[in-house]
């Protein structure tokens, strides 16, 4: 469904991604693992059209995304929930969700999707008239994912959904992510919490210094000595 073929990306003069390729099939959860500054977020931003690649191509269901502006990419059914959550702090919860459905694609089915999102995260319904900046970190992350769902994505890209959250909240978020996946939404996941990421994902890519260095079934990576030492800590060995 998603095919990233040999892309290079620059921040001005600085090269951030080197010949990166990745594939994702319909219905899959794929994890992207790497240290800080390794290029995980850059790759997601490249797919979402925020930082178009200079070489290579990005195909989504046969359509070239790398030449499209970001608002068009949303219309194709590709949605990024960025690391800073991509929500509007000075607006209330229901306004945020409404703007999540701004695309034509999302607006058509706004009411139904809103129902689904409130079912998934009931707390958002209680807080719907509250300003977003007054929500807790976990609630903000739920809102970010909910807002992403309102664009009716076929592919949902999540950048560090567990960032700064308590373990229990992280667990809830990941249960929701699995539920979303079961409704047929494919998920590309960037996550520092490698252990949890490899449990929910089917496959994973490891990225180092802007290059994909390993690609493996998630369950194999959980047993890989090198991965364990680099990303999971030795006590898992």
């Amino acid at each position, binding site marked *: 469904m998603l095919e990233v073929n040999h892309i290079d990306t620059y921040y001005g003069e600085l090269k951030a991604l080197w010949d990166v390729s990745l594939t994702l099939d319909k219905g899959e959860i794929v994890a992207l693992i790497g240290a800080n500054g390794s290029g995980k977020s850059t790759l997601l931003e490249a797919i*979402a*059209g*925020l930082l178009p690649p200079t070489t290579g191509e990005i195909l989504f269901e046969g359509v070239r995304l790398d030449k499209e*502006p*970001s*608002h068009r990419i*949303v*219309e194709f059914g590709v*949605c*990024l*929930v*960025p690391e*800073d*959550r*991509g*929500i*509007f*702090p*000075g*607006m209330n919860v229901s*306004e945020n969700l*409404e*703007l*999540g459905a*701004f*695309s034509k*694609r*999302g607006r058509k089915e706004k009411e139904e999707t809103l129902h689904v999102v409130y079912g998934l995260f009931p707390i958002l319904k209680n807080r719907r008239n509250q300003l977003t900046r007054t929500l807790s970190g976990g609630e903000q992350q739920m809102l970010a994912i909910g*807002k992403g769902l309102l*664009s009716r994505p076929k592919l949902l890209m999540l950048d560090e959904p567990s960032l700064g959250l308590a373990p229990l909240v992280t667990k809830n978020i990941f249960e929701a992510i699995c539920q979303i996946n079961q409704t047929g939404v494919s998920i590309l996941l960037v996550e520092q919490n490698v252990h949890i990421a490899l449990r929910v994902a089917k496959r994973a890519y490891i990225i180092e210094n802007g290059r994909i260095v390993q690609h493996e079934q998630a369950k194999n990576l959980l047993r890989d000595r090198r991965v364990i030492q680099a990303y999971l800590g030795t006590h898992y060995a």
Partner: protein
Amino acid sequence: MVQFLAQTFVNGINVGALYGLAAVGLSLIFGVMRILNVAHGEFLMVGGYIGFWLFKLYGVDPFVGLPLVGIFLFLIGIVFYKVVFSRVAKFHEEVKLKNSLLIAFGLYLIFPQIAMVLWTADERAISPAYSGQAFDLLGVRFGYVPLAGVCIAIIVILAMYLFLTKTYFGKSLRGTAESWKAAKLSGIHIEWTFMITFGLGISLAGIAGVLIALTQELTPFMGMPWTLKALIVVVLAGMGSIVGAFVAGLILGIVEAVSAIFMGPYTIAIGLLIFLIILVLRPQGLFGRA
């Protein structure tokens, strides 16, 4: 003495409403686009002169001409966005702010010269037959034209407020003002939002220009003083608060009118003094958030 003070207050409100109206457009453009349009007053001047032309050449009543000027200035705003400002709008925040300042200062240098050619350096005003009429209430004089100006300013600002809080497109403007990145990822077409925002802001400046032409005079060099007034009001109110900008405009108008009793020609310093005090003590503005 009470009557005199009341009259001063009313005069202050008459002027302050126009300050507010001029500031709302500047605030909208800065809030959504992060472009400080120091040529805002120039567009205000153009709006005033277009209203003057409609009245003088075609006998159009200024209050009928007002929506026409609004629409025309909206289109001018879109042309100026497309031709000049869209080129810097895509840059990063700091680069964008600096470059747009240079462009707007350039426009500030060009506009008065063109206005000199088109309308000469003579002071102009829109003075329909009813312009001097007024009624008395408890010994305080209310001019019909300034009162209509205040009412129109309130209506326009309320309409802006409702547009921004109740309509889908208005909400997307506020979203863009909060975070252009989040807006983009929500499927909002930023370029388009910027263009409409700029058109709206310029349109508000034009409407203010006509109302100013009705109560004060038009000169080719009025642009920068009005930009400064609008800027003081925006700083006083805090960025992004539409109703706040209007209230701050009223405050500045009243403070200036009252201080004129004691300070005469030095009132202009009062506005700048308020500007400095607010920047030091409450940089987020009276109605803004830190």
